[in-house]
């Protein structure tokens, strides 16, 4: 995913583990994604029980996600009439791959980054743009109506997610005078971007929620479409798709923690722990909103995105730019 040539960050201790080597890189990104997906499921179960006012046993909370994963792995994969088998298998891999690229650009602690490249947030934006291809392929492949409609929906909305996402990231890059995620984290020593650019994080989370097709923006896989792009997925295929969507959510939370919540900066605790805590907080916010806010109408969201979110993101860029000058 990244070679040594990609590394462009000053001040890294050359004696430390080289996280851009293939094995450490895969292990690190894999561990972040899997741990994040597990945390997402635990938070989701906890939020669902809290909102529903139901009692929750600790064992159910901790083991529930593993049990559900085991059940899906145990169940058979069914197929549809004349599906596009290759793209059906490829879609979750593409989604997970894009989430991995995004996580790779983020330093998880000082010097612990797989590919903290000079254009890190551009790479993140590019990876998030390709999420659209993964979701659409997933909807297309099963040769069935409701998955395809789910895919259409995502394509119709993707630009409305990506525009504000790109703009708030540019705004965050301005005070750092760099597109590297590491440099953006460095620039937040003393003042986090969430305070310096109060519009940034909320807009980023809305866009990120859309890209992960989660909660009120879970239109591609909604209940009203009998599951949307995953309406025909069963067994292991269903499991990998559910995982891939969570990976995207985790990538959004990790990046949000680094770009807006000061990354590893924080007192007492080690930098990596601060990153983990901040990521968990963002995941909790995303998951909590999913249980509180109704799914938004497609048409209404496009109007809101272009009439409100994008102008706000532009204001964010202009004000941030003016402050830097």
């Amino acid at each position, binding site marked *: 995913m990244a070679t040594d040539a990609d590394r462009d960050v000053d001040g890294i201790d050359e004696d430390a583990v080289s996280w851009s080597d293939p094995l450490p890189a895969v292990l690190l990104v894999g561990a972040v994604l899997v741990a994040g997906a597990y945390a997402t499921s635990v938070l989701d179960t906890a*939020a*669902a*029980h*809290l*909102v*529903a*006012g*139901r009692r929750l046993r600790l064992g159910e909370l901790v*083991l*529930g996600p*593993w*049990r*559900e994963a*085991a*059940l899906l*792995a*145990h*169940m*058979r*994969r*069914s197929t549809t*009439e004349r599906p596009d088998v290759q793209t059906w298998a490829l879609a979750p891999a593409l989604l997970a791959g894009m989430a991995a690229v995004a996580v790779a650009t983020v330093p998880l602690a000082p010097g612990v980054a797989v590919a903290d490249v000079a254009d890190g947030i551009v790479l993140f934006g590019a990876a998030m743009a390709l999420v659209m291809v993964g979701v659409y392929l997933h909807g297309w492949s099963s040769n069935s*109506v409701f998955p395809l*409609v789910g895919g*259409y*929906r995502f394509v119709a909305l993707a630009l409305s997610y990506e525009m504000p996402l790109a703009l708030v990231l540019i705004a965050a890059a301005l005070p750092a005078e760099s597109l590297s995620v590491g440099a953006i984290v460095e620039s937040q020593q003393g003042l986090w971007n969430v305070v310096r650019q109060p519009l940034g994080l909320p807009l980023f989370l809305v866009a990120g929620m859309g890209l992960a097709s989660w*909660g*009120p923006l*879970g*239109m591609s896989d*909604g*209940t*009203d*479409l*009998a*599951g949307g792009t*995953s*309406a*025909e*997925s*069963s*067994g292991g295929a*269903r499991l990998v798709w559910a995982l891939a969507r969570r990976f995207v959510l985790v990538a959004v939370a990790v990046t949000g923690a680094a770009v807006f919540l000061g990354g590893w900066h924080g007192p007492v605790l080690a930098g990596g722990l601060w990153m983990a805590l901040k990521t968990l907080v963002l995941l909790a916010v995303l998951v909590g909103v*999913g*249980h*509180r*806010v*109704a*799914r*938004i*109408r*497609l*048409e*209404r969201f496009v109007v809101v995105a272009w009439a409100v979110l994008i102008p706000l993101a532009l204001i964010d860029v202009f004000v941030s730019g003016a402050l830097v000058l």
Partner: protein
Amino acid sequence: MGLLTSAASRAEVPVFPVVGAGGREAAEALWLLPGVRMVDTPRAAAVLVVIGRLTRALLQPVLLVHDQMPGPRATLWWPVDGRPADDGTDGDEGLLAALPDVVTTTAGDAAGLRAVFADLLAGRRPWGPPALADIESPRWRGVGPYGHGGEGMMGGVPYGRPFAEMAQDPDGLMLDQLPLQIGPLFPALPPGLVLHLGLQGDVIRGVTLGDNPYRSWPGDPPVGPLDSVPFLDARTSPTTVAALEVARARHHLRWLARTLRLHGLDARGRRIAALAGGLSATDRPAVEALARRLGRDRGLAGATAGVGVADQATLEPLGIELAGGPVARAAGVAIDARTDDPAYAGLDFEPVVHHGGDARARLRQRVAEAAQALALAERAGDAVRSPGPPVEGPRGPLAPGRTMPSSSLIHLLPTLLDGQEWGDAVTTVASLDLDLEEAAVDQSATAWPQTPTGTSTASTRTP
């Protein structure tokens, strides 16, 4: 049993419910069972639960759903009117013939459901082949009387699948339009609703109503018991006003819970469904607080405002405007059978009315009526309503010889759904609170409750 299987058998049971005749009450319980999760698609389900009696027209769709479950799979049957499984009526017999391993358990029996699931995963319960034959679709034999039909590259039914045709979209462009049948078991629509429509992307064009699968033919058992049993009984026997009003509030809250689930708010829906299950007049403050919270809910307002507008002009030709009911009252028609009912004379009753006639107004209308109903129940004390005047049911007025409210409301669909996006269509259909079984009363050769059988369990329940 391996570690994986052992872990899997402790997971929440993914269940796909099918609501047969008389099954609506018991279906409410399924959602609240511990350790059970209702899923959106048969592809995610391990257990199919058939609730109530299968009509002939539902048998084939149920078998299709069964075959779509990937396996390991099991089918549970919850009979609701206490009849034995093999009394030889209707689609039930067909179900038992096609799926010999159907397990019959008491409705709402969570332990039985979990036991079947655990046996299934442990390999102690074998699971069978598809119930329907895997038939090769008809070969394409060209355009013309023996081929797929259609014109050029469009239309017709090549390989047994209706093919897209060209049609004008709302913006005046000629675009593909795919003819489809949706239902009777589509999980986001009311059980039994069949729609024939064209889809341009996710925009609906040209809706016609399909056959009602709950409709019964001569020789069939009657439909029902319906979910509005307390109100139907009140037409012929004395009932306390409090019982009726609590039943009304429960009905509206259950509708609200299902609607929230469709809007992606499963957990909030469950909380309200649980409240509805044990509802009494003393829950009035909780329901009033709920009504205030929902009134302030911007997300829900955004999802429903301006969707499925059924104003007085739309309602009038169908006779709904003059009949009343929550849908009419949400469009500003202040008609309610309780206004002229002597039992409500001293209770200070004024019909609740909302304006706009959209899905949002109907949501607010029903929640407000639920809160009002509990207030009436509190004030009514032991007052008894005597039969005679029409009863205001949860969907509209009920009187002998009068069409059931769902029979009229269902005819709003072709007008309201045409040109809507799919998500809005689901919101619109949900907001009308249709019961296809209730609509079947007017279409059936034998109709409950005119005939005495089939009233056993639900009618004796006291709210």
